[in-house]
């Protein structure tokens, strides 16, 4: 980065221009990526668990795995986009708690129909997201500080509304739906259908739309993005609103699947979501990441949890494993770079004549 020497560009006018990111063939770019490493890890974990962990291939395991991971899977979709822009949303779990309480109270105390209550709950989620989005995108406050504040604020409103009480009366059709399977003898819960729809929508939004290119560009450099015509503030605000809307939906789902609306529903879930997103290869600095890696990251954590539970480990040991995995995965880039440097130094010692030249070239890319 430091030596952008003039002669290297001057004496090679005939060299065709190359783009570092596209210098390798397509299949290499796909296979040798962080996302694929996570997917490979996921497959390895599933294969290992199926052969070594008793009951892992039982009919209930996958069903509960999907059902318990559904919240994180859903919340990870907007969180991926937000972290790619270089922001963060720590308030999602509190929004889930608030919408869960609102949903329960609107049905039990307000006497509304479940459909109206659900729509209103999602509307409250949108409001929460819009509040975050306004402060971050238009007032220009740092997202980490804002969402630490709203983490307390939204949860606090939920606690203020309901205290330590809970609401448990919901229409039976709705609670049954949340626990149903798509096909009677298959391990796929019903929630996977809305998840699949949302996942496709977010994949299109993030990876296959001009809006999505803007997301990545903001993460790389938001000033440059602004000058190429990306509406930085609006993009960020929209993403936070989407995050709130999805959190509202998750609030309804959590209420129905656990059968109880309480203020402390999903406490601490924001950290699981962020851990899974980062594990899935999204850079916390912004500008890098892909949805398939994130989903593999969520499922990887789910599989490890389930396998260790079946093996009789406590949730504490599982937390240690997830923590170590998270630290290792974010450190892997630096560790790999360090390893590469060691290799290069030893190689450079053998052929010192060429090394300086190649080093100069690399610094250009």
């Amino acid at each position, binding site marked *: 980065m430091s030596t952008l020497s003039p002669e290297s560009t001057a004496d090679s006018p005939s060299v065709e221009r190359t783009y570092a990111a596209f210098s390798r063939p397509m299949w290499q770019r796909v296979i040798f990526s962080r996302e694929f490493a996570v997917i490979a890890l996921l497959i390895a974990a599933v294969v290992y668990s199926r052969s070594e962990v008793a009951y892992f291939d039982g009919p209930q395991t996958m069903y509960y795995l999907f059902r318990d991971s559904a919240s994180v899977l859903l919340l990870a979709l907007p969180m991926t986009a937000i972290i790619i822009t*270089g922001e*963060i949303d720590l308030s999602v779990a509190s929004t889930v708690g608030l919408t869960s309480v609102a949903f329960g109270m609107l049905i039990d105390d307000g006497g509304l129909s479940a459909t109206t209550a659900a729509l209103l709950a999602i509307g409250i989620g949108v409001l929460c997201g819009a509040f975050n989005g306004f*402060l971050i995108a238009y*007032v*220009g*406050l*740092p997202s*980490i*500080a*804002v969402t*630490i*504040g*709203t*983490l*307390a*604020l*939204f*949860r*606090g*409103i939920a*606690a*203020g509304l*309901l*205290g*330590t009480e809970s609401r448990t009366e919901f229409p039976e059709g709705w609670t049954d739906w949340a626990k149903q399977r798509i096909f009677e003898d298959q391990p796929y819960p019903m929630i996977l259908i809305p998840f699949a729809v949302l996942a496709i929508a977010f994949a299109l939004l993030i990876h296959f739309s001009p809006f999505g290119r803007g997301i990545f560009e903001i993460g790389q450099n*938001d000033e440059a993005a602004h000058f190429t015509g990306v509406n930085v503030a609006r993009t960020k605000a929209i993403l936070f609103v989407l995050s709130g809307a999805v959190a509202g939906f998750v609030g309804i789902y959590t209420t129905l699947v656990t059968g109880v609306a309480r*203020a402390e529903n999903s*406490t*601490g879930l924001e*950290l699981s979501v*962020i*851990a899974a997103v*980062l594990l899935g290869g999204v850079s*916390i*600095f*912004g500008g890098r990441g892909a949805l398939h890696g994130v989903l593999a990251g969520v499922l990887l954590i789910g599989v490890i949890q389930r396998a260790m539970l079946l093996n009789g480990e*406590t*949730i*504490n*040991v*599982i*937390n*240690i*494993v*997830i*923590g*170590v995995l*998270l*630290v290792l995965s*974010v*450190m892997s*880039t*630096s560790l790999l770079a360090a390893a590469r440097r060691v290799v290069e130094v030893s190689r450079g010692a053998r052929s010192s004549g060429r090394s300086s030249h190649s080093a100069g070239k690399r610094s250009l890319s």
Partner: protein
Amino acid sequence: MSSLTHPSGGSTLSRVVKEALRSRELAVAIVLVLLIAVTTLKSESFLFSSTGWRDLLLTPSMLILLAVGQTAVIITRNVDLSVGSTLGLTAYLTGRLFIDTNLPIIAVVLAAVLMGAVLGLVNGILVAFGRVPALVITLGTMYIYRGVFLTWAGSDRINADDMPRAFRNLGTESILGIPVLTIVAVVVLCAVGYYLQTARGGRELYAIGSDPGAAELYGLKIRRRVMFAFVLSGALAGLAGAVSAARFGTVSSSVGSGVEFEAVGAAVIGGVAIFGGSGTVWGAALGAFLLVTINRALPVLGISDFWQQAVVGALIVGAITLDRVLVLRQEKRLVAARDDEPTSHATSPTLDPVLPGGSAAPDRPDPAGSDAAGTDSKEGGR
């Protein structure tokens, strides 16, 4: 905050007074005093009964320790989310040492501090050498430390009978009407505050947080300083663990959970910018005092204490919004002052070097501002 015209124009006294009037610390202190006054009017025992007075001073001591450590970390443009787990782990260690060994109290407390420092060192090494934001690293270590704590503790909890009476008395005893634990917290606060304000190492923490790139070019030992900040935060969390064991007399598995956000919130309310480079531990300590006191005052004021978390959240959001508005106003005034300049400087309107001591341009406003003002005026990227 830098005064707009003639940094050294007025007398030192008037400048100090002016600065104090504008400072965040004073604003938080006024809110705190008002809160205590209103609550006391409602119920006299909040301040004037002996337990009311004691609780008022005693309850914030734990959060003050955490907020002080957190401030040192945030100033370097990092954040430490693992303090809650560190606190839980060291609180349990304290109880465990009393049960399993016959160490004197002071040795046990030192062991807790040391344990916290080691956990902080792990964070520091990972952050300083991994070149990964502290948010991610400490999120990971938060899981790991809590997992270790809960695995170690299992289902047993430390009860009051397990700890020596002298240690538990520390949680209730007072010297000259001031609880011992509060004295501990204030001593730590003053030591760290003095260090950050005057010592070279402390100023370098501000420099690093203000502009890490510039600090590196200037030759500061960034890694060592950042590691030090994390060790300090960990050690203070360890001390807070011992304090919480003494104060509550029990250690259950839920101790310290969620407290990391309270510590960050206290620092932010006290005027510590989340992107580093500005803020003081005095402000953070006042913020911690305010947070804890609000929690205790709400029920007295007739508001269900279920709402306290909402109030805390609103305070945090309000504090950072206020910061932003003040910075924008300051920027506008600086721009206006620059445009009003006499034309003698027209040849080089903005490129005058800012020399230390203000000798280069005594008649110009200091464009960089003091360390408190300028840093968060730009959108800091992570």
